[in-house]
């Protein structure tokens, strides 16, 4: 086990594409770090550089106390779990797991001991003599994990190991991998594009966009204090609502106005963000998490400066809560960050964002208590938890904090 340190690591492909730029990342011994970002953001390239499958254009990577830049993969003492598992189809489960140990010339008894131990951890004992094609997707995934475990390496590298599983199994394997990692305390670098996996599994999460590290922190801190619009929009599902608003501050508390609404910003929110003063009487981007909106009929004593009257466009009942899509008479925020996030969802999402920006209308998502009376096409009054508003600089897209907030 060892720490992994990436210093100013860059990757430029021969065709000139910069896949990773100046990546600085310290992974502590035994830590589980998740690299997350939209597809094509360079997270897999970063992982492959640590593995030694991709050369490093610039910077240094250390595993333990060794700089591994020029070491071939087999000398880095790492184990990798691939997206498609990369099992050897002509070998039994036992041989698949023991292959790496055999090549390292471990004694037969030791190999046998380790393979059986790993099979025990993963519940694969009865499948040891089967070939991969006779296994289900989840079992194959476990064999891939087992192959990594038996090696007892300095670090696990995992490249979207769950993306080929169906949704239910993914949830189960998610907790299983997290548990195994927790038990073995092996330094782990885990790549995914699924922010739910990132949030639930990582000790810390590193968000990458276009090869540039945006923010590294614990999942909850990322959620509560996103560095910029990109992190804010990427972390959280449904995504944060964003709208451009005018801010005015007087007597320590503030007011944001957008689309005909006025929301009061409490004193402690303003004082926690000293930088906010610089945006007095200027436009800011206000971010609102869907769960910070509630049906006003369920919060009868909410003051008037926290309420929004609007119309429900769509109602999605999820059982535990209801997600209401509501119409807001303010243009959607269109920055490069937002465009990229939409692009990751798909071409339609991108068009919807641009369409919204032109029409001066946008949609908010509100996660409401299931007792809500929200109905499609009906007006609704929502209460905003103004203590949990997020503020961003419309020019740079950076979060507005200042002081010790960031």
């Amino acid at each position, binding site marked *: 086990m060892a720490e992994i340190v990436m210093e100013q690591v860059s990757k430029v492909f021969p065709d000139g594409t910069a896949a990773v730029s100046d990546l600085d990342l310290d992974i502590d011994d035994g830590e589980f770090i998740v690299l997350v970002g939209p597809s094509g953001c360079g997270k897999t390239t970063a992982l492959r550089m640590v*593995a*030694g*499958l991709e050369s490093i254009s610039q910077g240094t990577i250390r595993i333990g106390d060794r700089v591994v830049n020029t070491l*071939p*993969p*087999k000398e880095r003492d*790492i*184990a*990798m779990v*691939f*997206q*498609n598992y*990369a*099992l*050897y*189809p*002509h070998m039994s489960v036992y041989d698949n797991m023991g*292959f*790496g140990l055999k*090549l*390292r010339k471990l004694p037969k008894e030791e190999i046998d001991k380790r393979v059986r131990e790993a099979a025990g951890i993963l519940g694969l004992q009865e499948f040891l003599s089967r070939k991969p094609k006779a296994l289900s997707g989840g079992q194959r995934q476990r064999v891939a994990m087992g*192959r990594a475990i038996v*090696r007892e390496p300095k670090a696990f590298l995992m490249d979207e190991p769950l993306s080929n599983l169906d949704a239910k199994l993914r949830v189960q394997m998610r907790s299983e991998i997290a548990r195994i990692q927790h038990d073995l305390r092996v330094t782990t670098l885990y790549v995914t594009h699924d922010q739910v996996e990132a949030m639930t599994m990582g000790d810390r999460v590193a968000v990458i966009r276009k090869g540039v590290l945006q923010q590294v922190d614990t999942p909850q801190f990322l959620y509560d204090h996103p560095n910029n619009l990109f992190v804010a929009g990427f972390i959280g599902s449904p995504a944060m609502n964003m709208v451009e608003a005018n801010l005015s501050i007087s007597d320590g508390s503030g007011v944001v106005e957008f689309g005909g609404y006025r929301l009061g910003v409490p004193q402690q929110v303003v004082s926690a963000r000293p930088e906010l003063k610089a945006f007095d009487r200027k436009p800011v981007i206000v971010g609102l998490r869907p769960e910070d909106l509630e049906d006003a009929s369920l919060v009868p004593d909410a003051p008037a400066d926290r309420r929004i009257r609007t119309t429900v466009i769509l109602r999605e009942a999820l059982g535990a809560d209801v997600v209401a899509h509501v119409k807001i008479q303010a243009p959607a925020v269109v920055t490069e960050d937002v465009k990229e996030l939409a692009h990751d969802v798909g071409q339609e999402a991108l068009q919807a964002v641009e369409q919204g920006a032109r029409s001066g209308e946008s949609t908010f998502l509100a996660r409401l208590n299931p007792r809500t009376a929200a109905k499609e096409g009906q007006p609704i009054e929502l209460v905003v938890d103004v203590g949990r508003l997020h503020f961003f600089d419309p020019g740079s897209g950076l979060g507005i904090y200042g002081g010790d907030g960031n």
Partner: protein
Amino acid sequence: MSLAQAGDVEEAAEPVVAASQGRGVGEVRKGGWFVLLTIVAVCVLWLIPALGVLVTSFRNGDLVNTSGWWTAFAHPFQAGEWTVENYRSALDAGGLGNSFLNSLAVTIPSTAYAFSWMDFRGRYLLFVTVVGLLVVPLQMALIPILKLYVNGATLFDYVVFPQLHLNGTFLAVWLAHTGFGLPLAVYLLRNYIGSLPSSIIESAKIDGADHFTIFWRLIVPLSVPALAAFAIFQFLWVWNDLLVAYVFLGGERSVQVLTLNLANLVGSRGENWQLLTSAAFISMALPLIVFFSLQKYFVRGLTAGAVKG
């Protein structure tokens, strides 16, 4: 038999299909029958001559010359109608047994030899060049190679290829067949190996394998379908080859291969063609065994290079 069974299955399945799919079904089924009939017709057309040869090979020499092979079905149980004498004399007198072994001696090593080249993973240009050689007619190369075998080759007084007097030896044919089989082998296998998922190889690298281990422990076992498909190709081609063997081995009896022997049977005893039919069936038997035992790989391997898995 199997056709009748297939028909039964189709009929049994019909109500279900019709009920679930409605109107479009009729057209599909008409098409299905058309395809089926065409295939059956083609199969029958192909098989009739072979059947004729088979029947003839078991018939008496006199009968063969006086009546058509189909007349044998008129009274199939009549004594004197059937005989295995042709096989016996074809094997003994024609020296067919000897050339059978000769053919094996030629076929197996050249196939195996071609295999030893499977690790050939040249650069793209080299690959294109090698594959480009597929268009060079084999006949063009015969005389130069023969000259090479007989005279050797020198370039500015340096011996490039020694005078080995290879003509008339099995080695000459092995080398020639291997050489001619190489472009196709390289082409098939390169495409197949290229379609193996790269992550398997990367995974092996991380597991600690070097190139040699990766090749022997992963690439070769995983390429078995492609290797088998090529083995069948090469086997059938070498087995059925007359030209190369004739050119490089000559007509000497001790090294005569089966195809050559067959050709001689026609030439020297055109009147006794019942012997030829038996000989032909002996020569067909082995390829048939090879084909049927490996046909699973044959089909899989043929599509292997075409589409990326």
